C-alpha cells in the first residue's frame, strides 16, 4: 500500500513538472500551444530514439507515458522495434503501428461525436 502511494506521488510529480515546464514556456515566450506540442513531441522522439525516456517510464509510469513526450517516445520505440523484427519495412511502419490504436480512437470517436454535438462556445 505504501509503495502504491509512493508510485502515485511519483506519477503526480513527473506529470505535473512536465506540464509546468510547458506552461512556463507558454507564459514567458510567445510560442503557441501547437508549437509547444510539436516541440515536446520532438523531444520525446529524440529521447525515445536513444532509449532514455524508458528510465523515466519505469520510474513514474503514466506520469511519463501520458504527456505528449510519451507519445513521441512510443513512436520512436515502435520504429526501433519494427526495425529489429521486420527489417526496413518494419522501420517505416513501426511507429504508427505502436500508436495506431490511440490515433484511430481519437479520429473515429471525434467524427462520431461531432455528428451529435454542436459548438457551444458561440454564446453572446
Amino acid at each position, binding site marked *: 500500500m505504501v509503495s*502504491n502511494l509512493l508510485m502515485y506521488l511519483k*506519477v*503526480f*510529480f513527473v*506529470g*505535473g*513538472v*512536465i*506540464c*509546468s515546464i*510547458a*506552461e512556463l514556456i*507558454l*507564459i*514567458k515566450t510567445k510560442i503557441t500551444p*501547437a508549437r509547444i*506540442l*510539436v516541440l515536446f*513531441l*520532438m523531444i520525446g*522522439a*529524440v529521447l525515445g*530514439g536513444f532509449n532514455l525516456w524508458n528510465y523515466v517510464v519505469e520510474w513514474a*509510469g*503514466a*506520469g511519463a*507515458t*501520458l*504527456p*505528449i513526450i*510519451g*507519445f*513521441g517516445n*512510443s*513512436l*520512436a520505440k515502435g520504429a*526501433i522495434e519494427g*526495425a*529489429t523484427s521486420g*527489417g*526496413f519495412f518494419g*522501420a*517505416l511502419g*513501426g*511507429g504508427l503501428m505502436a500508436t495506431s*490504436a*490511440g*490515433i484511430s*480512437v*481519437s*479520429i473515429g*470517436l*471525434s467524427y462520431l*461525436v*461531432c*455528428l451529435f454535438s*454542436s*459548438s*457551444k*462556445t458561440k454564446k453572446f
Partner: protein
Amino acid sequence: MNKNQRNADYLIYVENQSPKSGWFVSLFRAFIMGGTICCFGQMISDVLKSFYPTMNLLTVGAWVNIVVISLTIFLTAFGVFDVLAKYGGAGTFIPISGFANSIASCAIEYKKEGLVFGVGAKMFYVAGPVLVNGVAYSMLVGIIYFVVSLF
C-alpha cells in the same frame, strides 16, 4: 496612421486585454491538472493490471491512452473540457487529452462547413502538425536505427 504604429497599438491592446493571473498561480494550476490527469491514467493502468495480470506493458499503456482519449472526447462534446482547459492551461493540453481535445473540438467547430472539407479536413488543424511531425520523426528514427544495425 502608419502600419507600424497601428501594430504597436494593437500589441498594447492585446497586452491589456489578456488575463493577468500571476504566472506562479498558472504554473501551480498546470502542475495540479497535469498531475491529476497522469494519476488518473496510472489508476486505469493499475485496475487493468489487477484484472488482466498477463497483459503486457505496451498493451496496458495503449489501453490507458484509449480510455483517456475517449473520456476527453466525450467531455469536449458536452462542453466540460473547455472549463478544465481554462483552469489547467498546459496541464490539460500536454497530456494526450490535449491531442484528443484538439481533434474533437475542431471537428465540432467546423461541422457547419460540411462533413468532407469541414470536419474531414479541418479536424486536423492543430493535431495535423503533431501527427505529421511525429510520423516523420518516427520514420527517421526507424531508418537510422535500421542503417546503424546493418554494420
